[in-house]
């Protein structure tokens, strides 16, 4: 047994016992009166508004750009501000938009997935191949189109699961894993149909991408619904909040008992499923599945551009669906204006890329650091 000396352990307090609350004010050991800080309750609501205000400001950062684009568009062509053109834009960007939702989720957990563009091509290709007769370059199984859509979703889920397991459990670098997977999938996409284009898709299979309800494209309705549901999920669901925690600081999330690995893998699966659904929309819109869809078109650049312009951080943990949607709309407007302005096809990509870089720069200047990270 040891017996200690009193001075070592608890030196008697030199200060009188104080109101416990004054501990909050970091009292000076010399006994000077310390300023009493704001109580958290008193400041609660202003604080809430302040942060929301910041969010709104960040989203609003792109509003001037959108307004400028609309003005430019209406100057370029009288056809720009017509219902037909605007719904057309809506239909064009919905497929991209759904992929952007998937990529944004993956970016939010601090990941990155290049292979979404190949999933976007391969998943509808596999489904169409199983649905169509041999005469249309299908494999002749002639599956029910609805079963085909189920398979399309499964293909997405399996690809996401493979990516997730390799990256999370295998601790491989996400960039390289998904780069490799991208190329493998693109090869499969061409390989199974010997680089043929699959057309004469059944109505049910093309419905999502081509149908209109009350003058509005179904794909746009579905894409908007996906944005809203995912946005609300991220804001109000405990798993959505966990996604922000995992992306913001995985070690802290793990220490708080969050199942970090499970959430990461789940998000990779969700991202790939969304990419497959985006691919279904695109196939319906063009009434065919080409070997070019996805990887061949290089849509991943637009996907990342839309997400980052919309303020989703490449470092994880920051961003939301309102921003991502803004980024998608911005890209759609630029594309449409270039089409309407009859810009030569030889130049359109260069200008497209330059406008995206400019938008990124602008978003960085207006929106501050968080937009560009």
């Amino acid at each position, binding site marked *: 047994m*040891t017996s200690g000396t009193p001075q070592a*352990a608890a030196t008697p307090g030199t200060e009188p016992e104080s109101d416990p609350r004054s*501990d*909050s*004010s970091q009292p000076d050991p010399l006994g000077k009166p310390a300023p009493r800080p*704001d109580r958290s309750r008193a400041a609660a609501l202003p604080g809430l508004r302040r942060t929301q205000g910041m969010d709104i400001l960040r989203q609003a950062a792109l509003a001037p750009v959108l307004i400028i684009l609309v003005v430019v568009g209406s100057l370029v062509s009288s056809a720009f501000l017509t219902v037909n053109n605007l719904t057309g834009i809506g239909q064009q960007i919905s497929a991209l938009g759904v992929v952007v939702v998937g990529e944004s989720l993956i970016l939010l957990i601090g990941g990155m997935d290049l292979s979404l563009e190949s999933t976007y091509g391969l998943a509808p290709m596999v489904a169409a191949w199983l649905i169509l007769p041999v005469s249309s370059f299908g494999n002749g199984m002639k599956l029910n189109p609805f079963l085909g859509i189920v398979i399309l979703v499964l293909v997405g889920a399996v690809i996401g699961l493979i990516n997730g397991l390799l990256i999370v459990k295998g601790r491989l670098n996400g960039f390289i894993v998904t780069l490799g997977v991208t190329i493998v999938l693109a090869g499969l996409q061409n390989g199974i149909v010997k680089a043929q284009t699959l057309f004469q898709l059944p109505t049910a299979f093309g419905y999502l991408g081509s149908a209109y309800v009350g003058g509005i494209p179904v794909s746009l309705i579905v894409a908007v619904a996906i944005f809203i549901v995912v946005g609300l999920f991220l804001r109000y669901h405990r798993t959505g*909040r966990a996604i922000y925690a995992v992306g913001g600081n995985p070690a802290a999330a793990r*220490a*708080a*008992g969050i199942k970090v690995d499970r959430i990461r893998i789940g998000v990779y699966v969700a991202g790939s499923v969304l990419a497959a659904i985006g691919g279904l929309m695109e196939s319906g819109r063009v009434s065919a599945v080409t070997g070019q869809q996805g990887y061949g078109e290089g849509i991943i650049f637009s996907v990342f551009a839309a997400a980052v312009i919309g303020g989703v951080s490449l470092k994880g943990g920051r961003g939301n669906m309102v921003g991502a949607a803004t980024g998608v709309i911005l890209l759609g407007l630029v594309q449409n204006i270039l089409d309407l302005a009859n810009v030569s096809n030889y130049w359109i990509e260069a200008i497209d890329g330059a406008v995206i870089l400019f938008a990124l720069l602008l978003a960085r200047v207006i929106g501050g650091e968080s937009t560009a990270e």
Partner: protein
Amino acid sequence: MTSSLAPAVQAVGIDKHFGSTHALRGVDISIDAGHCLGLVGRNGAGKSTLVSILSGLSVPDGGEVRFDGEPAPTAGAVDAWRGRIATVFQHSMVVPQLTVAENVFLGHRDAANGMVNWRTMRRRTDDIMAEWGFEIRSTTLCQDLTVEQLQVVEIARALATGARCLLLDEPTAALERGAIQRLFERVNQLVSGGVAVMYISHHLEEVFEICQDVVVMRDGAVVLTTPTSALTKDQLVTTMVGTVPATPASPPVATPTGTAATTAAVAAAVPRARTEAGSDDGPVLVVEGLTTSSTRGRLNGVSLQIGAGECVGVTGLLSAGVSTLGRVVAGAEAGDGGRVLVRGQVVRTGRRDLAQQAGVGYIPEDRRLEGFVAHLGVAENATMTITDRLSGTLGLLRPRQRTEAAQPLSEALSVVASGPDQPVGELSGGNQQKVTVARTLIHDPSVIVAITPTRGVDVASKALLLGALAGYAKETGAALLLASDELDDLVLCDRVVVLVRGEVFAEFTDAPFDREELISATEGLVRTGQDIR
């Protein structure tokens, strides 16, 4: 003075500031060729700063370093410094992606014609390893080595430079007894060959074993220089601690009475969520024979028990396994052997989520790394452990629910923030730590593992946090495991367990604890009247 008579290394009036911290105050130190000088002092005494200045890594604000009476090379002349002095640093400087041989000869520029002679390099490395009795192949990648083997690589590298001065900054921290003995033989050999050695260690018995002289530093100044034969270990400890332990810089941290009202408030602010399963009478936390070879310090069969409402402090030196023990119990790290039981139920180690479900709360050592998500708000961080309880069947929860759930505890802990949504990254260190504590307590844990919970926290918040943790344990019958190398943290504990090299070395059961006895125990020294297990 001719150079042959001048000390091999001499520091004259070294002064160094870091911002407002006066890290070194006119330090004079000299080592003669063929001597081994021990340098001791508590954490923060300025030892590491002095080492980095003597190795040429940082430039002093005042004073001068001389080698053999000549002024030291200019700052940044890396090769010139390396020819003069070799250092084994406290923190690993091994490049994990390179092989053992490459690391041992890292930065040697004496290869003929600038070409690397791989065969010679490998052979010499193999020779060195054979000499040390280690079966480390020269072609192994360093990332595949154990901590102990890495330390050997570091030492081999320092010895391979052929410098006439050697600085060893806690070289034995990760070594086993056998390796330590081999190191001592080697050092003695070098010293008798005329090399000047400076030996820094928290293990005072080592200093007595191989050093002829010892220098004691305290608060950035040298307070004693004497032959080791001229003083006892107790005197050395007393000199290190200083005659007045409670200096104005560290005022009394806490008195249980002063924070009683707050602690009760904290316990009351935590919603009861615990279901008292298992036996009521037995200890809440049982740790049985825990072993692990963690890089943070290994454990060699640590056992302890903590009863309901009991606060047990665990302390020891940096590498003694104190934080490892906390991390394994909290599930943040896996153990190799042994068991952790909470209320009689075995908890799998290495799974933080399972440990939390079993009722183990965790206040991590490094709050920036593990304590909070910087850009999320105070309320969200504080409720991060209980989102499953707050949300409904669909898993939905509104921000207001988080705010309301976090409010009582944030108030009881006096978290100062502009509002519940202010990002925690914007708060002061003390308030960040309060949020981390709130996050832990709000889950109503039956075991709290707190690792250095007051590090970098101001004096007032320190008292509040410690009071809150101890008070919560007392009021709710939880077990508190307080792992800390900060002796002031242990004031409120009922018992203090001292770890030395991953083993329980001593246990103090009667508060108040004697500071000097605690320090002696952490150094692995036995003092009179002490109970050794």
